[in-house]
């Protein structure tokens, strides 16, 4: 129950950050994708089930505030969260390499899907341009921000873990 409440608060916090604070901090006109950090972390920290729900909720908010086709981001983020959750068994709190790889590849998948479904299908064929100018900077920027955000999520996770162990024993 506590986990659900914390997850909901985190989703709202990250969404507000994504839509208000980060657009002000944008560097080279690129906004980092902090929601994907949350979805990816929820997946491999808490398992596929949590990743799925957090992903769906984040995508749902994205859908309301961004694009005409309702449900596109919901389904995309949900699958990203779920797939990240499949790597839950490889997750160790102290290891930083795997989260970095997971977050970056999640962002890449998200960008590629956006490009493919929402741009390529409207005959915007210049993939090189979009890759160099949008996808690559967004990935790097997201990775950079995740270095700051990951420890924060890590602390919450460690705190809840401790509580959980204490309750069950």
């Amino acid at each position, binding site marked *: 129950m506590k986990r659900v409440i914390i997850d909901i608060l985190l989703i709202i916090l990250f969404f507000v950050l994504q*839509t*208000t*604070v980060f657009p002000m901090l944008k560097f080279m006109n*690129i*906004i980092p994708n902090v929601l994907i950090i949350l979805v990816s972390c929820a997946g491999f920290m808490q398992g596929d089930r949590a990743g799925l729900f957090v992903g769906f909720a984040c995508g749902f908010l994205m859908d309301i*505030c961004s694009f005409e086709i*309702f*449900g596109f981001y919901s389904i995309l983020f949900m699958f990203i969260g779920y797939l990240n959750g499949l790597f839950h068994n490889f997750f160790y709190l102290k290891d930083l390499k795997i989260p970095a790889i997971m977050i970056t590849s999640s962002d890449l998948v998200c960008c590629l899907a956006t490009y493919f479904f929402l*741009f390529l299908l409207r005959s915007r064929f210049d993939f090189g341009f979009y890759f160099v100018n949008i996808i690559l900077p967004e990935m790097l920027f997201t990775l950079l921000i995740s270095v700051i955000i990951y420890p924060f999520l890590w602390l919450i996770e460690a705190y809840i873990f401790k509580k959980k162990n204490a309750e069950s024993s």
Partner: protein
Amino acid sequence: MSPLVRKPEEKYKLPTKYWLLILSGISVILMLLTFVFDIPLKPFNEVVSVTVVPLQKGVSIVGEKLYSRKEMMKEINELVDKNNKLMKEVEDLKYENSELLQEKYKLNSLLKLYELDQTYSDYPKTGATVISASTGNWFSTFIIDKGSKDGMKVGMNVLAGGGLVGRITEVGTNWSRVLSIIDDTSNVSCMVLTTNDHLMVSGSLSTMENGYITFNQLSENATDVVVGDKVVTSNISDVYLPGIQVGNISYMEKDSNHLSISGYITPSVNFEHISEVLVITELKTELE
């Protein structure tokens, strides 16, 4: 985790795979509803107006204050210099203005004579604050702090700094989403102010890197159009009121089919830092 290894006292949970299937199904149905049948999803908008919009409002107000404070310190010196220069200019302009006012008075009476007094300064407008930018790098939409309870409707035109910003595409109780004209999916039917030649202005993510939006479908016979001409919204557009300034032509070339001309337009609004916008509370369809 597989449901088979659950402890006996644990409550039964629907396996994750089924949840994945159910939620995918819901998403696909929603996509079909909005994309194929074009049904607006009102109830979901309300979820956001209750949860996220108040927070966004708070954060943007604080952010705006901090940002403006920072900018203020930086620009205060520049402004003193500028002020001196401008004061001189004001004196000149005051004189010019009084002359122009006299002419305007004359013009108004003449226009009244012809019943042509509908210019876009006459449209009823209301101010609104931008509370949230687009959620990513692919689209240029933003959220403003007025919604259906302030009389906002889908299709209303949005202005800033004297130029067209976009139109409202979705309305909640206390927020509305604006699709800006630089968005990759946006198309605006426009005309060249001097010659009344029609053209189609499309937002483009790839040219916006250099500060341009694109235009096309300008007739090849429009030989009087030159670079620098002003482009305004056309009177044949479905959603945009006529005569709103969009930008200036900055580059043009003949298409390979030798039937039409396309090129770039510099928008007259600076889309980098929009914080206040004006919404025209009159719909194009009401005019007819």
